[in-house]
């Protein structure tokens, strides 16, 4: 499943996209994120599956622009810690 967590408003589109088909639940991204945006838990949108996957914490979903902001300087962007930490390449950002 491609899970798009985030929102769009007048200032842009801010989605963290997690491919739960690729995610193996290793939680490397959880440790890598300095803002505590991610967690590994049961897939709430696939209620009959018991496989834990990465997801965006509920309290960050409507403020991702700000939660992820510190990892996204305007110039000289380093790779995003969550994206770099994810070995299967399951995480993408829309902005």
């Amino acid at each position, binding site marked *: 499943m491609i899970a*798009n967590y985030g*929102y769009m408003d007048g200032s842009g589109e801010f989605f963290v996209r997690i491919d739960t088909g690729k995610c193996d639940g290793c939680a490397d991204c959880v440790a890598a994120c300095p803002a505590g945006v991610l967690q590994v838990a049961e897939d709430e*949108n696939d209620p009959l599956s018991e496989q834990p996957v990465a997801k965006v914490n509920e309290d960050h979903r409507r403020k991702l622009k700000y939660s992820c902001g510190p990892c996204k300087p305007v110039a000289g962007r380093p790779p995003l810690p969550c994206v770099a930490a994810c070995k299967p390449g399951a995480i993408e950002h829309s902005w």
Partner: protein
Amino acid sequence: MAEEFWRWTEYRKTMDGVDWKSAEALTVGVDVGSVSSQAVIMADGKLYAYSSMRTGSDSPQSAQKAMDWALEGTGLTMDKIRYTVGTGYGRVNVPFSNRAITEIACHARGAHYLYGPTVRTVLDMGGQDCKAIRCDEKGKVLSFLMNDKCAAGTGRGMEVFADLLQVPIAEIGERSLDVDEEPRPVSSTCVVFAKSEATGLLREGWPKNKVIAAYCSAMAKRVVTLLERTGVQKDFAITGGIAKNSGVVTRLAKELGIKPLDTGYDTQLAGAVGAALFAQSIVKKSMSKAGAG
């Protein structure tokens, strides 16, 4: 008292040809949304009875009221219900539910039932959010995107608009199509700004229908950008209250170049139907486990 133009009709129905007495398992789905609440009773995975009403300020009470109304006249009582799943914004506030499941999972599953297994893209235009969901032939979610940070493109936005223009909400769609020429959409999709923009257009002398058309058009365009992110694949279904608004649906179909599927069911039931179907799956799973053990 002033007329309430936003007020839509609450309803309940018992389906013909389904008898709960001969059913093996009765399950319930309750969708407590931000604007409306639905309770659905299913007999062996078949829609039996339902109700839809306004969500009040007290979610547990709204869930109970919708449930009581769905049961009314059926001779059925809560103790005969095997399993209840709550969904929607207020899903954790359904006191009699056994489990809460997200509205994304429930809408895909519900649309699969209401529109048939060919559905691949579901757009839920709810009371206070918009969801674009892609699903497989079993109604399982393949990808989703939800926007609940902004009221543009939602039922609540339409209610505000109906009230501003003093046009009953059920007439908005039809009246928006009754224009000589399609006006440019209102430039702002934010409900608050669109409202002041509409007021300005009325002051300029635009007829009401034209202003409504400009708003419906903006709403359709807004939702298309949301859909583009997940991609639209045929067959396409729209659920939620706005699916009943022909003004938005017609314009959306035109923008996408895809005609949405029709359903004989009520479009607002998708979430609750999906919840009741998950309840059915859970009951079945436990029955087969018990049988195996």
